[in-house]
C-alpha cells in the first residue's frame, strides 16, 4: 500500500505522439491527473479525444514506435515510463490491470475461459495447476459467474457479452491489482448488463481496495461511479475535479456543453456543433476555441491556457478563468453547491447577468 501523502498514480505532463505518413500525430498532449487508492477517476471525452491513448500510455501498452511517450507516470512513487520492459511486465496485468471495451476481441476463442484465467494467473504467480484452477474458479465466482466450476471449461463463445466482460474482469483481478484501468468496459453492452457490470466494479473496488481509472464518453456512467473526473478534449485536459463540483458547477465551456447533451440537463439537443480538430495540426490557443461560443481573440493564440484552480480541487484550463479573464462570461453564477443536478432548473448555460 502507498503512504497516505502519495497518490497511487500520478501522471504528469504525459505526452503521446505517433509518427504517421502525414507527420506527427499528437494524441495526448501534456496531461496531468492522479488517482488515489480506493477512488474512481473517470476520463471523459468524445472519441478521438485521446482518452484511450492516455490510459494505454500509463503501462506503455502502446506500440513504440510508431508511438512515443514522454512525461512522468509515477505509480507508488516509481516512474513507470523509465522502467525497463521486464519490470514493467511485472506490473502490467499484475499490479495495474486493464479491461477493454470489447470482451469479444480481448479473448482468445481457441481456449477455454478457465484456461485463459489460469494462464493470466500463472504468468505472474508461481502456482501449481490445481491452485491456479481453484483461484480461477474463485475469481469467476466473485465476478458473479454462476456455477463457476462447471463453466470453467467452457469456451468464450458459450458466454454472453456481459458474462465475457465478467470473465475479463476476473482475468484482470488475478494479480490483486491496486489499480484497475477500465477502458469503456460497458459501452458495448446493453443498459441492463451495463448496470450489472458497474455494480460489480463498485463492489470489487471496495473488496480489493483498488484505484480505478475509468474511461467513458457516457456522463450517465460517470455520475454513477466516479469520485473525480478528468475531462479531455483533443489530447488536452479541459477540466478536472470532484464529480459533484463538476456536475454542479462545470467551469469549462466544453464540460458545460457535454452536460447539455444530456436531456436531464435541459439539453435542447443539437449536440456540440463542429468536429474535433485535426490531431496532426491542432489549433493555436485553447483546443476547444474553434467550437466554443465564448471564444475570444485570447483563446485563439498561444498555448492551451494554464490550469486555474476555480474551487478546491477543481482545475480548469480556460482563458476566462485566468489572469485578466472574466469567469462570469462563461459561468452561470446561479448555482449553489447543493443544487441537485437532475433538477429541471439546473440548466448549465451562458450567464444572463
Amino acid at each position, binding site marked *: 500500500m502507498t503512504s497516505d501523502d502519495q497518490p497511487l498514480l500520478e501522471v504528469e505532463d504525459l505526452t503521446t505522439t505517433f509518427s504517421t505518413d502525414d507527420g506527427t500525430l499528437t494524441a495526448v498532449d501534456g496531461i496531468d491527473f492522479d488517482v488515489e487508492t480506493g477512488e474512481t477517476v473517470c476520463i471523459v471525452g*468524445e472519441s478521438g479525444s485521446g482518452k484511450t491513448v492516455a490510459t494505454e500510455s500509463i503501462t506503455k501498452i502502446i506500440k513504440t514506435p510508431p508511438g512515443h511517450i514522454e512525461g512522468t507516470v509515477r505509480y507508488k512513487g516509481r516512474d513507470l515510463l523509465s522502467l525497463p520492459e521486464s519490470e514493467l511486465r511485472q506490473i502490467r496485468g499484475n499490479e495495474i490491470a486493464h479491461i477493454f471495451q470489447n470482451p469479444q476481441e480481448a479473448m482468445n476463442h481457441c481456449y477455454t475461459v478457465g484456461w485463459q484465467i489460469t494462464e493470466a494467473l500463472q504468468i505472474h504467480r508461481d502456482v501449481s495447476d490445481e491452485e491456479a484452477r481453484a483461484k480461477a474458479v474463485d475469481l469467476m465466482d466473485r465476478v458473479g459467474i454462476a456455477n463457476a466450476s462447471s463453466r470453467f471449461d467452457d469456451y468464450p463463445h458459450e458466454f454472453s457479452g456481459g458474462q465475457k466482460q465478467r470473465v475479463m474482469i476476473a482475468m484482470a483481478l488475478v494479480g490483486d491489482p491496486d489499480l484497475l484501468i477500465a477502458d469503456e468496459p460497458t459501452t458495448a453492452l446493453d443498459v441492463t448488463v451495463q448496470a450489472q457490470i458497474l455494480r460489480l466494479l*463498485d463492489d470489487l473496488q471496495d473488496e480489493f481496495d483498488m484505484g480505478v481509472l475509468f474511461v467513458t464518453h457516457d456522463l450517465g456512467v460517470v455520475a454513477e461511479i466516479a469520485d473525480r473526473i478528468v475531462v479531455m478534449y483533443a489530447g488536452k485536459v479541459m477540466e478536472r475535479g470532484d464529480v459533484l463540483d463538476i456536475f454542479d458547477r462545470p467551469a469549462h465551456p466544453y464540460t458545460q456543453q457535454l452536460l447539455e447533451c444530456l436531456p436531464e440537463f435541459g439539453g435542447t439537443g443539437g449536440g456540440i456543433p463542429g468536429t474535433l480538430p485535426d490531431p496532426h495540426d491542432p489549433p493555436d490557443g485553447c483546443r476547444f476555441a474553434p467550437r466554443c461560443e465564448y471564444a475570444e481573440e485570447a483563446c485563439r493564440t498561444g498555448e492551451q491556457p494554464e490550469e486555474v484552480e476555480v474551487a478546491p480541487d477543481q482545475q480548469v484550463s480556460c482563458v476566462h478563468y485566468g489572469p485578466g479573464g472574466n469567469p462570469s462570461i462563461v459561468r452561470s453564477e446561479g448555482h449553489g453547491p447543493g443544487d441537485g443536478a437532475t433538477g429541471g432548473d439546473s440548466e448549465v448555460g451562458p450567464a444572463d447577468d
Partner: protein
Amino acid sequence: MTEPLLSVRDLKKHYPIRKGLFNRQVGAARAVDGISFDIEQGETLGLVGESGCGKSTAANSVIHLEEPTAGEVIFNGNGREGATRNTDGTHPNDVTKFDDGELMEFRRGAQMIFQDPSSSFDPRMPIGNAVGELLKVHGMSDRHRRRAIVEDLLERVGLSANDFDRYPHEFSGGQKQRIALARALVLNPDLIIADEPVSALDVSIQAEILSLIDDLQEEFGLSLLFISHDMSVIRQICDRVAVMYLGEIVEIGPVEEIFTNPQHPYTEALLSSIPTPDPRAELGGIELRGTVPSPTNPPSGCRFHTRCHKVIQPEGVDIDQGDWRGLLNFREKVITGEIDIEQVRENVAGGGTEPTDSEVRAEVRREFDISETVDDPDLEETLSEAMNLLLEDNAEMAGEFLSEEITTPCAETEPGTTVHAPDHESACLRHESRAAAEPNPADD
C-alpha cells in the same frame, strides 16, 4: 385521418432449427412471437428491449427484409389510404402479401437506417452513388438528375454537395449516419425504420443526429419506428414506446406515461438501469440479473417470470419478495441441475477443514439471497427438505420435489393485456388479478 400509417398485427418470425442428416426441423427460435402495434402519420414509436429480445428481427420483418412467419403488416402509405379489408379477411395493403411490383412501391414508402455506420456503406462506392443507387434502382436513369437530387439532399442533412464523390472511409461515424439518413430519405418515404441509429456514436454526436432526425421528421411529416436499447435516447425522440421482451411486447404507451408510470416490472427494471447523470444518486434501483433466456425454449406463462423482481407468490403465501425470488431461482437451478453442491462445499471450505452441513446450507442461502429463515413455515420446510436431498447428492429428487412444492402463477398463466390509460397497455398478471378484483382499474 384515423387510419394509422403502419399497423402490425400479430407479427411472428420463427427461425427453424434443423438437425441431422435430413435437416429435419427440431424446433424454432421464436425471435418475434406475436407483436402488434400501430404507427400514426408523423409519429415516432420506440421499440426498446435488451439485445436478443427480437427488436431487430421485428424491424426486418416489418420492412420485409425477412419474410415473416405469420401476421400482417399493413402499410397505408404511398397513396394507398382508405383501403378496406377484402371479403376473405385479407387486407389489400398487407405488405406480406404484396407482389413484386407492389413491393417495389413499398420500398419507396418505407426505408431503414442501420446501427453500424462503419458497415452500412459499401467501402468501394462513393457515398453519392450509394445514395443515388436507390434512385437508379427505381428507374431514374438520368445521371445528372440523380446527382442533383443527391447533392441537394446531402446539403439538407448537413453535409456539402462536394461530398458526393468521397468514400465512406473519409467520414466520421456521425457523418456516415447523416449520409444514411440521406439514403433513407432519397425516395421520399412515409416511414423510416431506424435500428439503433445512434448507439454506436458518442453522446455529443448522438444528440446531433437525434435532433437532425427530429427536424427532418417535422419537415417531411415522416413516421418513425425507432429501435433502441437505450431508454434515455427513446425518451428524447419518441412519442410512444413499446417495450419488448423475448419476442413479445410487454408494455406499450405514450413515452411520458411509460417513464413516469411504468406498469410492467420489466419496464421498471429497464428504467432503473439507465445511468442517471446525478452524481448524488446511488447505484441502485432494481437489478435485473442474468440475461434474456433463449427464444428457442421460452419460459412458460409470462416470459419474464424467471427474472422478474415482482413475481407473484401463490395464494396464501406472503413472504419477503426477495426471499421468494431467491426460492424461485434456487428451484430453477436445482431443476436444471446447475447447482453443484460439491462446489459449494469446496467454496465454503476454501482449502481448510471439511464444512458442516449447516455451513453449506448457509452458503446456499447466501448465494440465492434467501434469509436465514423464510417467513412461511411450509416453505421453510420445503427448502430444508430440498437441501437435505441435495446434500445427500440426490439432485434429481430435489428437483422433482421443488417443482411440485414451489409454484408461481406467473409460470402457469400467460398474462393478457391490461389497459391502464388510453393507449397505455401492459401484459402482466399482477394487473390482471387486480383488474379482476376491481373492474375499473385506477392507474395511480
